[in-house]
Every structure is written in structure tokens, then in C-alpha cells.
């Protein structure tokens, strides 16, 4: 929390060239978080990095209003979220199934044997496919909730809604997800 207040102080009242230093500090501090948020949606390293760069370019364009930002972290996540959704909408032609399979293989599986890794990748793929089947709003809340850095209040700020809405969406998303996963498990067992 101290850190967030510090950044609010950095961003507060910075006209002209001093804002460049503030932006540089924001890059050092939050580029990684923004990349992870972008990657969780886009599932492509190059696209996620582009989204992060575009986010900071947008910040640069609005550097004069940096002093009005209360919580720079949430503000940045909101910008990158919008950038990512724009890109996602534009690049709808790419099949998502390939992305899910790739992402499931990329997830870390340290300390597991080869067989366990394969099984873990299949499990991850199953979960990600189930997440992809969720309604869009529930899906977004669920993805953002996985980030330890974001509280439900902050997710509400990012998505431009209330905390109670986020909580109810999250509850619904988790119920739907567990239902889908149970269903797929039953189907797998009956298939064997």
C-alpha cells in the first residue's frame, strides 16, 4: 500500500518534463504486471508486449493529466485491459483452440516427471477450455481475479463496475467453471 501511495505522489502534480521521469518509474514498476495481464488474454508473447508498449504510449500522450491519477497501478491495468480487448476484437480470426493448447504447454511444471507434465498440460488445457466457454463478463472477472496483485475493489475499478457486481460475477463464474470441469471429467471417464 505504501508503494501505491508513493506512486500517487510521483504522479501528483507533474507538469512538463518531470512527467517523463514518472512514466519511466511506472515502466520499471508495472511493465511486468501489465505484460501478464495482457498475456492472460492474448496468449501471445509478442502481442502482449505490443499491448504493454501501446499502453505506455497512451500514458505518454496523456502525461499532462498524470497528476490527476489516484492509483497509477489500477489506471495502467485498466488501460492495458482496454488495449488488449481492442486487439482481441480485431484479431478474432485466429482460432483460440491453438492458443489454449500452446498456453497449456507453456505453463511451468517444475519437479514433475515427463508423464506428469503431459497430464498437467492436459489438465491445464481442460481448465482453459472451460474458462473459454464461460460468458464474457464472468470470464474477464475470473481471469483478473487470478492476479494476486488485484483486489476485488481494484478489479471493479478496472472493469468500471461495482465491487458487489464483481463478487457476484466471480461467484457465478466459479460455479459455472466447476460445473463445466465436472462435466468434462464425466465425459472423459465415460469415453475411456
Amino acid at each position, binding site marked *: 500500500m505504501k508503494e501505491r501511495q508513493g506512486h500517487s505522489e510521483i504522479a501528483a502534480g507533474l507538469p512538463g518534463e518531470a512527467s517523463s521521469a514518472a512514466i519511466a518509474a511506472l515502466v520499471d514498476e508495472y511493465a511486468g504486471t501489465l505484460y501478464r495481464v495482457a498475456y492472460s488474454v492474448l496468449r501471445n508473447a509478442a502481442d502482449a508486449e505490443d499491448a504493454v508498449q501501446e499502453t505506455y504510449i497512451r500514458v505518454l500522450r496523456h502525461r499532462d493529466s498524470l497528476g490527476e491519477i489516484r492509483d497509477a497501478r489500477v489506471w495502467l491495468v485498466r488501460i492495458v485491459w482496454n488495449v488488449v480487448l481492442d486487439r482481441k476484437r480485431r484479431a478474432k480470426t485466429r482460432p483460440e483452440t491453438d492458443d489454449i493448447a500452446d498456453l497449456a504447454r507453456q505453463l511451468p511444471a517444475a519437479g514433475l516427471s515427463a508423464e506428469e507434465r503431459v497430464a498437467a498440460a492436459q489438465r491445464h488445457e481442460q481448465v482453459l477450455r472451460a474458462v473459454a466457454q464461460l460468458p464474457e463478463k464472468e470470464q474477464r472477472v475470473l481471469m483478473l481475479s487470478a492476479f*494476486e496483485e488485484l483486489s476485488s475493489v481494484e478489479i471493479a475499478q478496472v472493469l468500471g463496475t461495482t465491487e458487489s457486481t464483481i463478487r457476484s460475477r466471480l461467484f457465478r463464474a466459479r460455479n459455472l467453471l466447476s460445473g463445466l470441469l465436472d462435466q468434462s471429467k464425466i465425459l472423459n471417464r465415460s469415453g475411456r
Partner: protein
Amino acid sequence: MSWNSPNIDRPDESRHEAEETLRLVAELPEPAQLTERVHRRIADAQVMPERRGFWSLWLPAQRFQFAAAAALAIAVAGSMWSVYHGHPQAGTAKQSPAPVQSTPPSAGHFDSAGAVRVPPTLKPIQVPQGSKKKPAASHAKTKPSPKVLAAQP
């Protein structure tokens, strides 16, 4: 935010799996030197307006072009105005009053409504009479009439 919030039912196996997968996705490491590349991109974006400033020599040219176009438009409009307003004055000086017909129009019939035919010329144009040439005999032979052709065996 963890999955064990008060709103959630008893966590089961599926939920734990989903939680684990989403957490792993959220914790994927960023690529190496990401911040350096972002810094570079921002620096490039900041430099771009200065580069445009260097090439801003085109701006005066555009201003000159605009001024030239405006001057041209004004000249055209001025000349049109002078022609439009100057023509009737020149015409009125030489204009003769139109002849008025003394006879009143008869009711129920068409009449000329006072129009008087003015011949375009006072003197009729004398067209010199040219000598009429007879068609050459060779020309007449070249194309016989269909009747002649039909009469031939």
C-alpha cells in the same frame, strides 16, 4: 484475490485445478528486457515530434499555397463581379427603346403580343452565283444505277 472468499462454496478438486491453472497463467514471467524495450519505445515516441519539427519546413510552403489559392479565388470572384456589374451599364447606353404597337390586341385571338420582327440585316446578303459543274462522264460511269444493272443480261 484468492478463491477462498466468503462467497464461495466448499472448494472441490475442480476448483483447485482451475485455481492452479489460472494462477500459473497470471504468474508467467515477462520476457527478458521488457522494460528496456518499453523505455526505448517511449524514448522514440518522445523524439518523433522533434523529427517532425525538423521537417516542418513544409508548413510555410503550405501557407504560401493557401495564400496563392485565396488570391486566385479573390481575383476570379472580382473579375466575375466586374463583368456582371459592368455589362448592363454598357448595354444601357446604346439601348434603343422597344417599339410599342399602337393597335390593341383583339380579344379572343392570338396575336403577336407587340413583338416586331427586326430583320438581322438591312441589306440582303448577296450570294454570288457559282457556275454549276456537270458531273464528269467518268464519274457517271463508275456507278451504274440498279435499273441498268437489272436490264443487263
